[in-house]
């Protein structure tokens, strides 16, 4: 899990700026790259992530589309066949529901269906996650639903540096990528960004905090909850590692096993409802691959098994630092 060579000096950015920088860089690098979706052009996106792109690259490469998620993704398939590199935005991950039939069964399978003739270098960007009191659907963290339709990669950065480099990687990847952006962190998490020209391939988890008693596993915004929980645990005398998965597909099984073996205990945290969430996959995998190294079972902390509630009640739904802390205590103390 060693990081490759740096080619530019680090710059401090928010996640939002890092994503925008990646879009600028990739559009400049390859004129086949197109950015489109609802309101991404003139407005620059409802979060202003794509701000300035249309002015810079013109209305042929950055454009607003009609309000139809299925067509946005479906057209991306055709644009890719026609030699373009589409980077569509779905305004919120919770509206990939409307495009579901064009993502897993079409975009993800087109390389295979066409026996390799039509690879799909498409990156779908979509923000998700709770904590910002959005209306219904706008927080739904449904990334695990796409793990049942192989052919697509799922990338969930938690830091500006990863957002910057992994979005570039996604756009250059010959395969489709669902790139999930933690809306809660867009402007709140800042950090150094170092542009890498030859980054590691997808599928490498990263230890973002070293500890010895328990490993907290997460991706996307939940990584930061785990970091806070780890600090609290520290005060209570428990030393927690935090592993940022970074990509769900491909999954870094070796990295997971290694991180958990070193502590013997693990808690996996995600915002999606517990049942059927990707935490189950992590837990199942760890038990399969590292059973004998586990001193206690992997504990999952997820969203509740209910529909995402109105903003006023999202704390009752979401995994919180206290819930993570108490799960970690349980893992360690039994």
């Amino acid at each position, binding site marked *: 899990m060693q990081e490759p060579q740096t080619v530019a000096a680090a710059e401090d950015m928010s996640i939002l700026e890092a994503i925008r920088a990646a879009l600028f860089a990739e559009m400049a690098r390859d004129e086949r790259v197109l950015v489109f979706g609802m*309101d991404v052009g003139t407005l620059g996106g409802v979060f202003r992530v794509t701000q300035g792109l249309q002015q810079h690259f013109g209305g042929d490469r950055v454009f607003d*589309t009609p309000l139809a998620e299925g067509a946005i993704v479906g057209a991306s398939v055709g644009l890719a066949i026609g030699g373009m590199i589409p980077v569509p935005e779905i305004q919120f991950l919770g509206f990939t529901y409307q495009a579901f039939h064009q993502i897993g069964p079409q975009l993800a399978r087109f390389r295979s269906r066409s026996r390799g003739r039509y690879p799909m270098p498409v990156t779908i960007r979509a923000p998700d996650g709770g904590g910002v009191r959005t209306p219904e659907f706008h927080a739904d963290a449904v990334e695990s639903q796409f793990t049942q339709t192989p052919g697509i990669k799922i990338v969930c950065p938690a830091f500006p540096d990863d957002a910057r480099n992994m979005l570039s990687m996604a756009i250059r990847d010959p395969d489709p990528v669902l790139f999930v952006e933690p809306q809660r962190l867009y402007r709140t998490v800042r950090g150094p960004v170092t542009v890498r020209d030859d980054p590691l391939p997808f599928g490498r988890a990263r230890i973002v905090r070293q500890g010895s008693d328990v490993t907290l596993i997460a991706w996307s915004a939940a990584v930061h909850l785990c970091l806070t929980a780890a600090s609290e645990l520290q005060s209570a005398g428990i030393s927690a590692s935090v592993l940022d998965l970074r990509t769900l597909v491909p999954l870094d099984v070796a990295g997971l096993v290694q991180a958990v073996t070193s502590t013997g205990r693990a808690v996996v945290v995600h915002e999606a409802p517990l049942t059927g969430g990707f935490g189950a996959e992590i837990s199942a995998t760890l038990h399969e691959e590292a059973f004998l190294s586990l001193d206690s079972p992997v504990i999952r902390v997820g969203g509740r098994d209910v529909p995402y509630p109105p903003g006023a009640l999202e704390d009752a739904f979401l995994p919180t630092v206290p819930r993570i802390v108490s799960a970690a205590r349980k893992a360690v103390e039994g």
Partner: protein
Amino acid sequence: MTQQPIEAGAVDSTVTRDARLGADGVASGDAPMSREQVLEAYRLMLQSQAIDDLAIKLQRLKRVGLYAPVQGQEAAVVGSALALDPRRDWLVPASREQPAMIRHGLPLVNFFAGYMGRLDSAGIPEGVKLLPRQQAIAAQLPHAAGLAWAMKLRKERAAVMVYCGDGASSEGDFHESLNLAGVMHVPLVVVVINNQYAISTPFHKQTAAQSLASRAIGYGMPGIAVDGNDLFAVYAASDDAVRRALDGGGPTLIECRTYRVGFHNTSDNPNDYREQEEVSAALADDPTTRVERYVLAQGLLSPGAMAQLKVEIRAELDAVQRSVADLPRPEADFIFQNVYDVLPARTEQQRAETVKEDRR
């Protein structure tokens, strides 16, 4: 089948109406509404403006989360909703039809409770034939088609009116449900509030169609485009459509052409994507002002009574808002209510945990 004659051009089902209530407040021809109806409409339009103002103020004070104003669309929303009989007909909103929901029977307290997070009081009371607001664009359309279908199957004399926006007209749900409504010949009235924008996306980027009403032909139903700022035109078209629905004449598509004068919602800034001139032009043709002029010209209200009415409306809202603020906030385990009839054991356990955590 191949022998059937190729049609000499499909029949155009789009009917167009002349203006009824002009920008000057003068009605051409007979008014399609009674004096009482005009006054009800006027009151609802004023109330809608007052709700916009109050909700935006409360949002700025962080007492309301997000609010999408009606401003500019009052005639389209009120004129259509008034064609319904709330005891008989159903109303299926999108998410910007506040006065229609209230007119259809949603109590003001419940209305504000929804926006102000007092969830225990925010439901739709039993007996009010209304669906909740829908946040997934166009998803309400098949629900409305199914509901109208139920009315037909049950032989209930009732119409269903459903709203959607110009943006919504691009979603697959729009198409699938209108086609279904057409072929099942159900008592549905689809009111498209074409306010020229879907967030920042103007109508000409939404579709190359000249009119959304023209889509009706492809579903085998009548379609009509009206000036959505003309209360009388909207009401007349809606009333026709409701009657047709009640008489077994099947669904109708109505496009109300209007303009979203305000921001998309409280976290939007329209200056980022449109010119002030465009907004000024629309402001100059405020639909409520048209009605106000008519009301004054016809002597339905004196200037004094009108001023009094406005004060009353604002006072009522403010009282409601204050009483809602006094309502209890929901408990944490509210999120487990109404998920299932009976919670699965595992979820029940999560509920118990949540209650315990909340107490800590």
